[in-house]
């Protein structure tokens, strides 16, 4: 590690400011707004004082940690990708975000007050679920560092040091070579998939179960039971999807190694939609009246929309493959869905890069 990489000469104040604004919105402004809104609602509606008290405590945490995270975001954004300085601030942010979430639990008092005033909900379980996605948040700066380090060191704009590869000698199974992959993209997509297909659905199920159980309505028992089944399937399908998402994100557009996990993900995702949609049927019994709702048609329509991703990834392989081959089978270090951004400011040549 070179201490010179922390030199301000390597940094860009403009990028740092942009990153700080994003960080401020994410860690300070939005949380603070929500907490203040909560305090205002509780105060105006004569709500429970205990809730107002914990919200006030949360406000202090949000202010302090939000400000710290905003400052860290500034430095994280200011330093270029592939530097130890950016890695350090990135890791600091990732770890501090976990601490931030932990502190908001107020050592169990948040759960206790919500349980007393609203309904029993296991916030520790929700935190544990969040923790798994947060681990990806910690790994992502490392992934970015490993992806970008050669670029930073070379300062040439090349996205790999493998050199050119003869396209005619390249076979589709060669697409699975690890050197084509981007750790950061893989981890990012895996984290997003874990969040959207496992963690958030499970949190919704936990909250629904807590809310419905607190109603103590016997007729809702079948629904609660089916929610538990759905939760099990969400985990069962979500984890393979997360694993596939890593490889889909890891490999570049135009590669078979991206196409196969992408298509598999879509197929599993279709089944996931079917399961989480309770297979399009909702059965309820209210005062000896059986009510059955069959919305499988709508669910099929949603699945049709999601099924179009199969076409999308096939097209993507077809449209990008030639480009990828002609480009010399490079890593895809840009955002997959966005336009290619201009490369970050190239690093100084090695002999100049470390600044005392």
């Amino acid at each position, binding site marked *: 590690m070179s201490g010179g990489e922390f030199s301000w000469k390597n940094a860009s104040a403009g990028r740092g400011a942009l990153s700080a604004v994003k960080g401020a919105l994410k860690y300070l402004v939005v949380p603070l707004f929500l907490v203040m809104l909560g305090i205002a609602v509780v105060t105006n509606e004569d709500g429970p004082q205990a809730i107002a008290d914990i919200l006030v405590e949360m406000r202090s945490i949000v202010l302090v940690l939000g400000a710290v995270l905003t400052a860290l975001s500034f430095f994280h954004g200011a330093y270029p990708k592939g530097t130890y300085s950016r890695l350090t601030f990135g890791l600091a942010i990732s770890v501090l975000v976990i601490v931030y979430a932990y502190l908001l639990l107020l050592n169990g008092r948040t759960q206790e007050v919500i349980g007393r005033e609203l309904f029993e909900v296991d916030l520790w379980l929700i935190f544990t679920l969040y923790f798994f996605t947060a681990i990806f948040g910690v790994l992502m700066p490392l992934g970015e560092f490993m992806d970008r380090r050669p670029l930073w060191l070379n300062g040439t704009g090349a996205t790999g040091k493998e050199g050119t590869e003869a396209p005619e000698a390249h076979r589709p199974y060669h697409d699975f070579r690890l050197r084509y992959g981007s750790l950061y993209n893989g981890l990012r997509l895996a984290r997003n998939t874990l969040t959207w297909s496992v963690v958030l659905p499970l949190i919704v199920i936990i909250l629904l179960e807590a809310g419905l159980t607190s109603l103590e309505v016997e007729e809702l028992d079948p629904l609660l039971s089916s929610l538990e089944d759905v939760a099990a399937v969400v985990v069962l399908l979500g984890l393979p999807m997360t694993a596939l998402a890593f490889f889909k994100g890891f490999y570049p557009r135009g590669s078979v190694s991206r196409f196969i996990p992408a298509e598999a993900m879509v197929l599993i995702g279709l089944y996931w939609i079917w399961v989480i949609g309770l297979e399009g049927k909702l059965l309820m019994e209210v005062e000896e009246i*059986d009510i059955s709702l069959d*919305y499988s048609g709508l669910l099929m329509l949603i699945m049709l929309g999601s099924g179009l991703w199969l076409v*999308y990834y096939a097209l993507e392989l077809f449209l990008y493959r030639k480009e990828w081959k002609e480009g010399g089978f490079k890593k895809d270090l840009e955002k997959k869905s966005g336009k290619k951004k201009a490369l970050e400011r190239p690093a100084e040549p090695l002999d100049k890069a470390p600044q005392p």
Partner: protein
Amino acid sequence: MKLPLLATRVGILAVKLSVAVLVALSILPLLMGGIGIGLEDEEEGDWALDGSTIRLEAPLMVSNDGFFDVTDLRVGFTFKDRDGNVLAVSEMDPVDIPAGRETAIPIEIALDLYDLDRQTRSDLIFNGTDMAFDLSVQAKYTWNLVGMSVDGGSEMGWDALLGNLDVRTDMAYLGEMDGNHTVVVPFTLYANDMVRDGQALALTEYWDSQGYYANITQMVDLSDNIWEEAAVPLSSEAYDRVMTGEEQLTVRVTLFFLDCSNYEETTFTEQWGWGG
């Protein structure tokens, strides 16, 4: 992003947005109470007997203030006896309820008594019974993408069509008809609204302890407060016996209706020496 990929993404987004809009437009009317179902006029929901068929005709009013037509609306009724055996199934033809309209649907429940076994029919006519009544409503909405069915059931007490047959031997008297002696035995019964204006057959039988037997049949007009008198012919010997001493007499009135019967029998002792 390349154009075909962009087009595919737009397609995916369009489908998902369409579904979201469809869901919102489907749920909103339900939440706002825009779809209602009820009887137009409770008075029109009375049962009637038409020949051998018990019939209920009632216009069901369905209002649809939603955004989509309600299609294939089916209403079905199932009657079961107290043991759960299906007595009758009635299903109306599917109808569509256009959006923004209130539509009257004539529902008809028909139960042909001749479709029932004799014991069940007899229970319905003479004894009253408990019945189970299942209602099933099915409909489709949002271009048939959403289907809904509601199934409910309840117990219903069924009053006898003809009941409280009572042979009023306390009001019996001796009379004469065309120069012949008769014993006139009144009987009363109750007729349900459903069978009023109809007729039942009454067979009145008489016998005494000496083995004399006579009977008479008559048609009974079913109306409020039925009071009928059966004039049973008596032989001279039988007449003398009831006039001269105490005689144990038995009268049985049997009612026949829709191939079922029910009787009331009374044994009594009467001394008519003083006249009726």
